[in-house]
């Protein structure tokens, strides 16, 4: 934040702090929220605004005469939020970059892009307050965004099992009766329960307490 206000050019993952971003979200239709530029710009705007807000709050605390450590401590709420927004942006950009550079069949690529869009849209929906606060997005745009979120659920639903199968985790490594590849859950839950050490005896050791209690 300090360097961003100077003439020094920022490089690396904080370069967005100096970037010229649209002052308002450019989405006009629901489908616009599938566009990578619109989604990433929203994350950049959010990160930049909360980082700069934290910097301003820190400056205000210093102007009040607080020492740097006390001023820092008084701004933890803003600082933690700034770091989270910065990291969230990094994840969204990495996901898009990963999908854009992946080589696979078109249906698989489409599935991956859908998940990526869904991840980005869901994150905006979860943090919409940051984007409403300074008017970057308005209520109508958020309604469109959340309708797009719901529409994507229906796209993901039929391929959900295929998507998790792609993680390719063998049953022995997954170690879950519920998550078995063959889906034979209930019969194996029963078998698993029977193998519990408590089931080795019909009458448990605790009967030494149960018996006298019941006979009293």
């Amino acid at each position, binding site marked *: 934040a300090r360097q961003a206000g100077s003439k020094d050019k920022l490089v690396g993952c904080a370069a967005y702090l100096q970037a010229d971003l649209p002052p308002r979200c450019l989405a006009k239709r629901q489908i616009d929220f599938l566009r990578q530029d619109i989604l990433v710009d929203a994350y950049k705007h959010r990160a930049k605004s909360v980082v700069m807000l934290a910097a301003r709050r820190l400056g205000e605390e210093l102007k009040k005469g607080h020492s740097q450590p006390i001023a820092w401590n008084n701004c933890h709420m803003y600082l933690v939020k700034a770091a989270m927004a910065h990291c969230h942006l990094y*994840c969204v950009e990495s996901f898009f970059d*990963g*999908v854009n550079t992946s080589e696979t069949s078109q249906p698989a690529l489409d599935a991956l892009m859908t998940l990526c869009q869904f991840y980005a849209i869901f994150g905006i929906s979860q943090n919409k307050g940051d984007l409403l606060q300074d008017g970057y997005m308005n209520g109508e745009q958020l309604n469109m965004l959340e309708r797009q979120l719901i529409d994507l659920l229906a796209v993901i639903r*039929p391929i*959900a099992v295929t998507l998790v199968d792609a993680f390719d985790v063998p049953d*022995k490594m997954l170690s879950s009766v519920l998550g078995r590849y063959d*889906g034979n859950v209930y019969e194996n839950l029963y078998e698993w329960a029977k*193998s519990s050490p408590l089931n080795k005896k019909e009458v448990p050791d605790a009967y030494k307490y149960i018996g006298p209690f019941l006979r009293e």
Partner: protein
Amino acid sequence: INPDIAEERENAKFDPIELTYVIDGGKEKTERRRFLESEALNDPVFDDPADIAFLTDEQRHTNSVRKSLHMVRRLQEMEITNHMESHWFRVAVHRSEEIALSLHASMFQHTVMHQMTEEQQAYWLRATKDYTLLGTYAQTELGHGTFLRGLETTATYDPTTQEFEIHSPTLTSMKWWPGNLGKTATHAIVAAQLYTKGSRMGVHMFMVPLRSLETHLPHPGVELGDIGPKLGYNNIDNGFLRFNHYRIPIENMCMRHSKVMPDGTYVPPPHKKISYGSMLPIRSGIVGNTGWYLSKGSTIATRYSVVRRQSELIPGTKEAKILDYQSQQLKIFPNLATAFAFIFTGREMMKHYFESLAEMDEGNYSSLPELHATSAGLKAFTSSVMASGLEELRTSCGGHGYSKASGFPELYGTAAPASTYEGENTVMFLQTARYLMKV
């Protein structure tokens, strides 16, 4: 195959292996991973005596060490030195449990490779790679965690004998938490405040022998023990360590970046944060791992949600698959998408790390602050999202998610420590914020 899950696969629009190749980074890598996993999963020596849910913690520790040592031998026999291949094999050996002896192959070995001189490495690196000793990384103390400058353990140089005296001056200075420290490790990289010529020079790393290689008994002046049962990691003897004026030779200080000369003169490092370097690969690696933990949780929840049926979505029809309910989709799909997001982010983070490491090996430390800030923040962000995501996925399985049969208790117990180890998350966010304020 359960017909409800078979139906889902019959209607698939693509072959899942296509995405598996993308996730692994190519068909050849997938095939190699599968080969290594099959070597581990089909080796009867790696079978557990019973489902781990039914074993005591002591049985789990013994079983885990047994498997780990066989794993070391198999890795040597197969001549696997590639980090990723080794990781795949280790994960397959330990299945849902934390990998035993993982600190030996990661932070312990990393410190030897990157913080010791070539002369020091001539001995210690061979011993580390040959496993003629078992190492761990002892930094955290009972009363001190992420704030390294607050560590109390001392290493006081004595020029008359050319030795360091390692000491735990207070109760809170005991080393507390390191994996396999309690009962398994024979050596540790110990983080201690260096004192020489009466001055404190800050935290430095020391190679400290803890147990006899003949009897496995702790050396005189070294007190060791297990810290007891935990939320997870119950196959691992996370330990405590207390020193009582224990002496090690001058050669055991990691001297690649800063040095103590025989007369006690101190030579400082080129960059003040260079000694924190061992944290960076671990934090960077955690990012991708959070994606893998979420992928497991998503796999369990999604498959179960097409087998489980509950209530009538349309009155008078068969009970619906619970994945057909929008509320269930809203619990699972964000976590499924996040799993992919974190896998890709982890890949990007590791790329960033290796690029910066190459620069630092050439003497260029300019990327260190950004790498430090990015790895700290992303470790915190991904691990906190993952932990809450796993809880949401567990509850998406209803009551059965509470059973250890679901895999969620072990998965959560193994994954959740990432929020507090290698730097508590809020402290990590504040480190990233400090960098963001500066730039």
